Protein backbone atom coordinates (compact mmCIF):
# COMPACT_ATOMS: atom_id res chain seq x y z
CA UNK A 1 0.00 0.00 0.00
CA UNK A 2 1.31 3.40 -0.91
CA UNK A 3 0.72 6.29 1.43
CA UNK A 4 0.38 9.71 -0.06
CA UNK A 5 0.92 12.67 2.20
CA UNK A 6 -0.41 16.02 1.13
CA UNK A 7 1.06 18.80 3.20
CA UNK A 8 -0.02 21.47 0.72
CA UNK A 9 -3.64 21.03 1.73
CA UNK A 10 -2.69 21.72 5.34
CA UNK A 11 -0.27 24.56 4.71
CA UNK A 12 -2.79 26.37 2.50
CA UNK A 13 -4.81 26.88 5.70
CA UNK A 14 -1.97 28.97 7.10
CA UNK A 15 -4.18 31.76 8.52
CA UNK A 16 -5.71 29.22 10.91
CA UNK A 17 -2.27 27.99 11.92
CA UNK A 18 -1.10 31.56 12.47
CA UNK A 19 -4.08 32.39 14.69
CA UNK A 20 -3.43 29.16 16.58
CA UNK A 21 0.24 29.95 17.14
CA UNK A 22 -0.66 33.48 18.28
CA UNK A 23 -3.11 32.12 20.86
CA UNK A 24 -0.58 29.57 22.08
CA UNK A 25 2.06 32.25 22.53
CA UNK A 26 -0.42 34.66 24.16
CA UNK A 27 -1.67 32.05 26.62
CA UNK A 28 1.90 31.12 27.48
CA UNK A 29 2.95 34.74 28.05
CA UNK A 30 0.00 35.37 30.36
CA UNK A 31 0.70 32.14 32.23
CA UNK A 32 4.39 33.01 32.61
CA UNK A 33 3.77 36.54 33.86
CA UNK A 34 0.99 35.78 36.34
CA UNK A 35 2.02 32.21 37.16
CA UNK A 36 5.53 33.22 38.19
CA UNK A 37 4.15 35.96 40.46
CA UNK A 38 1.72 33.47 41.99
CA UNK A 39 4.60 31.05 42.42
CA UNK A 40 6.73 33.67 44.17
CA UNK A 41 3.86 34.51 46.54
CA UNK A 42 3.25 30.84 47.35
CA UNK A 43 6.95 30.17 47.78
CA UNK A 44 7.15 33.11 50.19
CA UNK A 45 4.31 31.68 52.24
CA UNK A 46 5.69 28.15 52.29
CA UNK A 47 9.42 28.84 52.42
CA UNK A 48 11.23 28.23 55.68
CA UNK A 49 12.19 31.49 57.36
CA UNK A 50 10.51 33.69 54.71
CA UNK A 51 6.96 34.59 55.62
CA UNK A 52 7.00 32.10 58.47
CA UNK A 53 6.60 34.68 61.22
CA UNK A 54 3.98 36.77 59.41
CA UNK A 55 1.77 34.14 57.85
CA UNK A 56 -0.99 32.44 59.87
CA UNK A 57 -0.87 28.63 59.91
CA UNK A 58 -4.14 28.25 58.01
CA UNK A 59 -2.88 30.25 55.03
CA UNK A 60 0.15 28.00 54.93
CA UNK A 61 -2.13 24.96 54.97
CA UNK A 62 -4.27 26.37 52.15
CA UNK A 63 -1.22 27.09 49.99
CA UNK A 64 0.25 23.66 50.67
CA UNK A 65 -3.04 22.00 49.74
CA UNK A 66 -3.23 24.08 46.55
CA UNK A 67 0.30 23.21 45.48
CA UNK A 68 -0.07 19.49 46.17
CA UNK A 69 -3.53 19.25 44.60
CA UNK A 70 -2.41 20.88 41.37
CA UNK A 71 0.84 18.94 41.15
CA UNK A 72 -0.92 15.61 41.56
CA UNK A 73 -3.85 15.98 39.14
CA UNK A 74 -3.74 16.15 35.33
CA UNK A 75 -3.97 19.57 33.68
CA UNK A 76 -6.88 18.45 31.51
CA UNK A 77 -8.94 17.64 34.60
CA UNK A 78 -8.12 21.04 36.11
CA UNK A 79 -9.18 22.68 32.88
CA UNK A 80 -12.45 20.70 32.69
CA UNK A 81 -13.15 21.50 36.33
CA UNK A 82 -12.75 25.23 35.68
CA UNK A 83 -14.59 25.29 32.36
CA UNK A 84 -17.38 22.75 32.95
CA UNK A 85 -17.49 22.50 36.73
CA UNK A 86 -17.35 26.10 37.91
CA UNK A 87 -20.30 27.37 35.79
CA UNK A 88 -22.46 24.84 37.66
CA UNK A 89 -21.34 26.57 40.86
CA UNK A 90 -22.17 30.00 39.44
CA UNK A 91 -18.91 31.18 37.78
CA UNK A 92 -19.40 31.45 34.04
CA UNK A 93 -16.19 31.74 32.05
CA UNK A 94 -15.33 31.96 28.37
CA UNK A 95 -13.08 29.23 27.00
CA UNK A 96 -10.17 31.66 26.71
CA UNK A 97 -10.57 32.96 30.26
CA UNK A 98 -10.84 29.41 31.61
CA UNK A 99 -7.67 28.42 29.71
CA UNK A 100 -5.76 31.41 31.09
CA UNK A 101 -6.89 30.76 34.65
CA UNK A 102 -6.08 27.05 34.43
CA UNK A 103 -2.61 27.72 33.04
CA UNK A 104 -1.80 30.40 35.61
CA UNK A 105 -2.97 28.16 38.46
CA UNK A 106 -1.05 25.21 37.05
CA UNK A 107 2.24 27.04 36.51
CA UNK A 108 1.83 28.83 39.87
CA UNK A 109 1.89 25.55 41.78
CA UNK A 110 4.94 24.17 39.99
CA UNK A 111 6.78 27.50 40.10
CA UNK A 112 6.09 27.72 43.84
CA UNK A 113 7.97 24.49 44.49
CA UNK A 114 10.83 25.42 42.17
CA UNK A 115 11.26 28.92 43.59
CA UNK A 116 10.92 27.66 47.15
CA UNK A 117 13.89 25.36 46.66
CA UNK A 118 15.86 28.40 45.49
CA UNK A 119 14.73 30.52 48.45
CA UNK A 120 15.72 27.84 50.93
CA UNK A 121 19.20 27.65 49.44
CA UNK A 122 19.85 31.26 50.50
CA UNK A 123 22.62 31.33 53.11
CA UNK A 124 21.32 32.51 56.47
CA UNK A 125 24.22 34.94 56.79
CA UNK A 126 22.91 37.00 53.87
CA UNK A 127 19.58 37.58 55.58
CA UNK A 128 21.33 38.43 58.83
CA UNK A 129 23.66 40.81 57.04
CA UNK A 130 20.67 42.53 55.42
CA UNK A 131 18.90 42.76 58.79
CA UNK A 132 21.96 44.29 60.38
CA UNK A 133 21.82 46.98 57.69
CA UNK A 134 18.28 47.72 58.92
CA UNK A 135 16.59 46.75 55.66
CA UNK A 136 12.88 46.16 56.00
CA UNK A 137 11.47 42.65 55.61
CA UNK A 138 10.04 43.51 52.20
CA UNK A 139 13.37 44.90 51.01
CA UNK A 140 15.21 41.84 52.23
CA UNK A 141 12.88 39.53 50.31
CA UNK A 142 12.74 41.45 47.00
CA UNK A 143 16.32 42.73 46.90
CA UNK A 144 18.44 40.22 48.82
CA UNK A 145 16.77 36.83 48.83
CA UNK A 146 14.69 36.61 45.66
CA UNK A 147 17.12 37.61 42.87
CA UNK A 148 19.82 35.02 43.65
CA UNK A 149 17.13 32.41 44.28
CA UNK A 150 15.59 33.05 40.86
CA UNK A 151 19.03 32.95 39.28
CA UNK A 152 19.68 29.53 40.84
CA UNK A 153 16.41 27.95 39.72
CA UNK A 154 16.00 29.71 36.37
CA UNK A 155 16.90 26.61 34.27
CA UNK A 156 14.25 24.48 36.06
CA UNK A 157 11.76 27.30 35.75
CA UNK A 158 12.42 27.54 32.01
CA UNK A 159 11.81 23.80 31.60
CA UNK A 160 8.57 24.07 33.54
CA UNK A 161 7.42 27.04 31.45
CA UNK A 162 8.02 25.00 28.30
CA UNK A 163 6.04 22.09 29.75
CA UNK A 164 3.19 24.51 30.44
CA UNK A 165 3.41 25.89 26.88
CA UNK A 166 3.14 22.36 25.49
CA UNK A 167 0.32 21.69 27.95
CA UNK A 168 -1.65 24.57 26.45
CA UNK A 169 -2.43 22.20 23.54
CA UNK A 170 -5.07 20.72 25.83
CA UNK A 171 -6.95 24.05 25.87
CA UNK A 172 -8.16 23.26 22.35
CA UNK A 173 -10.39 20.64 23.94
CA UNK A 174 -12.57 23.41 25.37
CA UNK A 175 -12.51 25.28 22.02
CA UNK A 176 -9.80 27.82 22.75
CA UNK A 177 -8.45 28.55 19.30
CA UNK A 178 -4.84 27.60 19.93
CA UNK A 179 -2.55 25.55 17.74
CA UNK A 180 -3.91 22.05 18.29
CA UNK A 181 -7.44 23.38 17.87
CA UNK A 182 -6.31 24.70 14.48
CA UNK A 183 -5.07 21.21 13.60
CA UNK A 184 -8.44 19.76 14.53
CA UNK A 185 -10.25 22.38 12.50
CA UNK A 186 -8.04 21.83 9.45
CA UNK A 187 -8.45 18.07 9.53
CA UNK A 188 -12.21 18.46 9.78
CA UNK A 189 -12.10 20.54 6.58
CA UNK A 190 -9.82 18.43 4.39
CA UNK A 191 -9.49 15.08 6.27
CA UNK A 192 -5.70 15.37 6.22
CA UNK A 193 -5.47 14.55 9.92
CA UNK A 194 -2.01 12.98 9.99
CA UNK A 195 -0.43 15.81 8.00
CA UNK A 196 -2.22 18.46 10.05
CA UNK A 197 -0.85 17.08 13.30
CA UNK A 198 2.64 16.70 11.84
CA UNK A 199 2.64 20.37 10.82
CA UNK A 200 1.30 21.43 14.20
CA UNK A 201 3.75 19.13 16.00
CA UNK A 202 6.64 20.78 14.13
CA UNK A 203 5.24 24.20 15.03
CA UNK A 204 5.24 23.25 18.72
CA UNK A 205 8.79 21.96 18.40
CA UNK A 206 9.91 25.27 16.88
CA UNK A 207 7.99 27.25 19.48
CA UNK A 208 9.54 25.30 22.34
CA UNK A 209 13.06 25.71 20.93
CA UNK A 210 12.43 29.43 20.36
CA UNK A 211 10.90 29.93 23.79
CA UNK A 212 13.85 28.19 25.44
CA UNK A 213 16.24 30.53 23.62
CA UNK A 214 14.28 33.65 24.55
CA UNK A 215 13.97 32.63 28.20
CA UNK A 216 17.64 31.67 28.48
CA UNK A 217 18.54 35.02 26.95
CA UNK A 218 16.16 36.86 29.29
CA UNK A 219 17.57 35.00 32.28
CA UNK A 220 21.13 35.93 31.38
CA UNK A 221 20.16 39.51 30.60
CA UNK A 222 17.93 40.36 33.55
CA UNK A 223 18.92 37.92 36.28
CA UNK A 224 22.66 37.75 35.74
CA UNK A 225 22.94 41.29 34.38
CA UNK A 226 24.99 40.25 31.34
CA UNK A 227 24.57 42.31 28.23
Amino acid at each position, binding site marked *: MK*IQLDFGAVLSEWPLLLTGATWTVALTLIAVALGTLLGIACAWVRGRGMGAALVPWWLKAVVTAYVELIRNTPF*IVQLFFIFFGLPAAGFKLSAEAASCIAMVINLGAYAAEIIRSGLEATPKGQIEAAQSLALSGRHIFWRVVLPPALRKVWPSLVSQIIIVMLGSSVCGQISTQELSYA*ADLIQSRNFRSFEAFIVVGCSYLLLSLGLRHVLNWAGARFLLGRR
Partner: protein
Amino acid sequence: MVDFSIWDIVRNLLLALRWTVGLSLMAFIGGGAVGLALVLLRQSKSAIFNAIVSAYVQLFQGVPLLVQLFLAYYGLGLFGIDTAPWVAAGIGLTLYTSAFLCEIWRGCIASVPKGQWEASSSLALTFYEQMRYVVLPQALKIAVPPTVGFLVQVIKGTALASVIGFMELTKVGKTIANATFSPFLIFSCVALMYFVLCYPVSLYAQYLERKIHAHR
Protein backbone atom coordinates in the same frame (compact mmCIF):
# COMPACT_ATOMS: atom_id res chain seq x y z
CA MET B 1 -31.16 13.51 31.80
CA VAL B 2 -30.23 10.21 33.36
CA ASP B 3 -30.68 9.55 37.05
CA PHE B 4 -27.41 8.60 38.68
CA SER B 5 -27.06 8.13 42.40
CA ILE B 6 -23.77 9.19 43.98
CA TRP B 7 -22.88 5.53 44.29
CA ASP B 8 -23.46 4.97 40.55
CA ILE B 9 -21.12 7.83 39.74
CA VAL B 10 -18.38 6.70 42.12
CA ARG B 11 -18.68 3.06 41.02
CA ASN B 12 -18.37 3.94 37.34
CA LEU B 13 -15.43 6.23 38.01
CA LEU B 14 -13.70 3.53 40.04
CA LEU B 15 -14.22 1.04 37.21
CA ALA B 16 -12.67 3.56 34.82
CA LEU B 17 -9.78 4.07 37.22
CA ARG B 18 -8.69 0.50 36.43
CA TRP B 19 -7.98 1.58 32.85
CA THR B 20 -6.00 4.59 34.00
CA VAL B 21 -3.87 2.34 36.20
CA GLY B 22 -3.54 -0.28 33.43
CA LEU B 23 -2.50 2.26 30.82
CA SER B 24 -0.02 3.85 33.24
CA LEU B 25 1.61 0.48 33.93
CA MET B 26 1.70 -0.37 30.24
CA ALA B 27 3.35 2.95 29.39
CA PHE B 28 5.74 2.77 32.31
CA ILE B 29 6.92 -0.79 31.69
CA GLY B 30 7.08 -0.41 27.90
CA GLY B 31 8.65 3.04 28.18
CA GLY B 32 11.16 1.72 30.69
CA ALA B 33 12.25 -1.06 28.33
CA VAL B 34 12.57 1.25 25.30
CA GLY B 35 14.19 3.95 27.45
CA LEU B 36 16.81 1.50 28.72
CA ALA B 37 17.68 0.44 25.18
CA LEU B 38 17.96 4.11 24.15
CA VAL B 39 20.15 5.08 27.07
CA LEU B 40 22.51 2.19 26.35
CA LEU B 41 22.70 3.26 22.70
CA ARG B 42 23.42 6.76 23.95
CA GLN B 43 26.38 5.44 25.96
CA SER B 44 27.95 3.75 22.97
CA LYS B 45 30.76 5.61 21.27
CA SER B 46 28.94 5.88 17.94
CA ALA B 47 28.24 9.50 16.99
CA ILE B 48 25.35 8.51 14.72
CA PHE B 49 23.47 6.62 17.44
CA ASN B 50 24.12 9.49 19.82
CA ALA B 51 22.66 12.00 17.40
CA ILE B 52 19.63 9.85 16.65
CA VAL B 53 18.82 9.24 20.29
CA SER B 54 19.23 12.88 21.27
CA ALA B 55 17.03 13.95 18.34
CA TYR B 56 14.44 11.40 19.47
CA VAL B 57 14.47 12.78 23.01
CA GLN B 58 14.35 16.37 21.77
CA LEU B 59 11.40 15.51 19.53
CA PHE B 60 9.29 13.88 22.21
CA GLN B 61 10.10 16.53 24.79
CA GLY B 62 9.33 19.39 22.40
CA VAL B 63 5.99 18.20 21.03
CA PRO B 64 2.91 18.09 23.27
CA LEU B 65 1.79 14.64 24.39
CA LEU B 66 -1.65 15.48 23.02
CA VAL B 67 -0.23 15.92 19.50
CA GLN B 68 1.85 12.75 19.90
CA LEU B 69 -1.28 10.79 20.76
CA PHE B 70 -3.15 12.18 17.77
CA LEU B 71 -0.19 11.32 15.53
CA ALA B 72 -0.11 7.76 16.89
CA TYR B 73 -3.87 7.46 16.44
CA TYR B 74 -4.07 8.77 12.87
CA GLY B 75 -0.60 7.60 11.85
CA LEU B 76 -1.18 3.94 12.70
CA GLY B 77 -4.44 4.09 10.79
CA LEU B 78 -2.61 5.45 7.79
CA PHE B 79 -0.36 2.40 7.76
CA GLY B 80 -3.41 0.18 7.66
CA ILE B 81 -3.08 -0.95 11.27
CA ASP B 82 -6.43 -1.25 12.97
CA THR B 83 -6.15 1.32 15.74
CA ALA B 84 -8.18 0.72 18.81
CA PRO B 85 -7.79 3.79 21.06
CA TRP B 86 -5.95 1.74 23.68
CA VAL B 87 -3.34 0.63 21.13
CA ALA B 88 -2.66 4.18 19.97
CA ALA B 89 -2.65 5.49 23.55
CA GLY B 90 -0.37 2.67 24.68
CA ILE B 91 2.12 3.25 21.86
CA GLY B 92 2.03 7.05 22.16
CA LEU B 93 2.54 7.01 25.92
CA THR B 94 5.25 4.34 25.68
CA LEU B 95 7.29 6.46 23.26
CA TYR B 96 6.74 9.59 25.37
CA THR B 97 7.78 7.79 28.57
CA SER B 98 10.82 6.23 26.92
CA ALA B 99 12.15 9.63 25.82
CA PHE B 100 11.86 11.13 29.31
CA LEU B 101 13.23 8.07 31.12
CA CYS B 102 16.13 7.93 28.67
CA GLU B 103 17.01 11.51 29.55
CA ILE B 104 16.64 10.95 33.31
CA TRP B 105 18.77 7.81 33.25
CA ARG B 106 21.40 9.39 31.05
CA GLY B 107 21.85 12.02 33.75
CA CYS B 108 22.20 9.31 36.38
CA ILE B 109 24.83 7.44 34.37
CA ALA B 110 26.67 10.69 33.72
CA SER B 111 26.85 11.34 37.44
CA VAL B 112 28.86 8.16 38.03
CA PRO B 113 32.43 9.45 38.47
CA LYS B 114 34.64 9.14 35.41
CA GLY B 115 37.29 7.33 37.45
CA GLN B 116 34.95 4.37 37.71
CA TRP B 117 34.92 4.01 33.92
CA GLU B 118 38.68 4.39 33.73
CA ALA B 119 39.33 1.95 36.56
CA SER B 120 37.07 -0.66 35.05
CA SER B 121 38.55 -0.29 31.58
CA SER B 122 42.06 -0.57 33.05
CA LEU B 123 40.89 -3.94 34.39
CA ALA B 124 40.12 -4.86 30.76
CA LEU B 125 36.39 -5.15 31.28
CA THR B 126 34.34 -5.01 28.11
CA PHE B 127 31.67 -2.32 27.61
CA TYR B 128 28.99 -4.81 28.65
CA GLU B 129 30.89 -5.81 31.79
CA GLN B 130 31.60 -2.21 32.70
CA MET B 131 27.91 -1.40 32.41
CA ARG B 132 26.66 -4.53 34.11
CA TYR B 133 29.03 -4.71 37.09
CA VAL B 134 30.40 -1.21 37.64
CA VAL B 135 28.35 1.67 36.25
CA LEU B 136 24.71 0.55 36.25
CA PRO B 137 24.62 -0.64 39.88
CA GLN B 138 25.82 2.78 40.99
CA ALA B 139 23.60 4.67 38.56
CA LEU B 140 20.58 2.61 39.58
CA LYS B 141 20.80 3.85 43.14
CA ILE B 142 20.44 7.51 42.16
CA ALA B 143 17.98 6.73 39.37
CA VAL B 144 15.21 5.36 41.57
CA PRO B 145 13.79 8.59 43.10
CA PRO B 146 13.45 10.58 39.84
CA THR B 147 12.05 7.50 38.09
CA VAL B 148 9.37 7.08 40.73
CA GLY B 149 8.71 10.81 40.48
CA PHE B 150 8.23 10.50 36.75
CA LEU B 151 5.61 7.80 37.30
CA VAL B 152 3.36 10.62 38.54
CA GLN B 153 3.81 12.40 35.19
CA VAL B 154 2.90 9.19 33.37
CA ILE B 155 -0.28 8.71 35.41
CA LYS B 156 -1.27 12.32 34.71
CA GLY B 157 -0.34 11.84 31.06
CA THR B 158 -2.84 9.00 30.66
CA ALA B 159 -5.62 11.56 31.17
CA LEU B 160 -4.83 12.82 27.65
CA ALA B 161 -5.73 9.42 26.20
CA SER B 162 -9.32 10.57 26.74
CA VAL B 163 -9.06 12.84 23.69
CA ILE B 164 -8.61 9.90 21.33
CA GLY B 165 -11.59 8.15 22.88
CA PHE B 166 -9.95 5.81 25.36
CA MET B 167 -12.46 5.24 28.17
CA GLU B 168 -10.26 6.00 31.15
CA LEU B 169 -11.06 8.11 34.19
CA THR B 170 -11.20 11.53 32.51
CA LYS B 171 -13.25 10.35 29.54
CA VAL B 172 -15.74 8.45 31.69
CA GLY B 173 -15.96 11.48 33.99
CA LYS B 174 -16.75 13.73 31.05
CA THR B 175 -19.32 11.27 29.69
CA ILE B 176 -21.10 11.01 33.03
CA ALA B 177 -20.95 14.78 33.47
CA ASN B 178 -22.70 15.19 30.12
CA ALA B 179 -25.37 12.71 31.12
CA THR B 180 -26.07 13.98 34.62
CA PHE B 181 -25.47 17.74 34.26
CA SER B 182 -23.48 17.82 37.48
CA PRO B 183 -19.97 18.55 36.22
CA PHE B 184 -18.86 20.25 39.45
CA LEU B 185 -19.38 17.11 41.53
CA ILE B 186 -18.01 14.73 38.93
CA PHE B 187 -14.84 16.59 38.03
CA SER B 188 -14.18 17.04 41.76
CA CYS B 189 -14.45 13.25 42.15
CA VAL B 190 -12.21 12.67 39.12
CA ALA B 191 -9.57 15.10 40.41
CA LEU B 192 -9.75 13.50 43.84
CA MET B 193 -9.18 10.04 42.38
CA TYR B 194 -6.13 11.19 40.44
CA PHE B 195 -4.88 12.85 43.61
CA VAL B 196 -5.34 9.68 45.66
CA LEU B 197 -3.46 7.76 42.98
CA CYS B 198 -0.60 10.25 42.51
CA TYR B 199 0.00 11.76 45.92
CA PRO B 200 1.33 8.61 47.63
CA VAL B 201 3.69 8.09 44.67
CA SER B 202 4.90 11.71 44.98
CA LEU B 203 5.45 11.31 48.72
CA TYR B 204 7.33 8.05 48.16
CA ALA B 205 9.57 9.72 45.57
CA GLN B 206 10.30 12.56 48.02
CA TYR B 207 11.06 10.03 50.76
CA LEU B 208 13.49 8.14 48.49
CA GLU B 209 15.16 11.39 47.52
CA ARG B 210 15.69 12.38 51.14
CA LYS B 211 17.03 8.92 51.97
CA ILE B 212 19.67 9.18 49.26
CA HIS B 213 20.78 12.62 50.39
CA ALA B 214 20.99 11.47 54.01
CA HIS B 215 23.67 8.96 53.03
CA ARG B 216 25.95 11.57 51.57
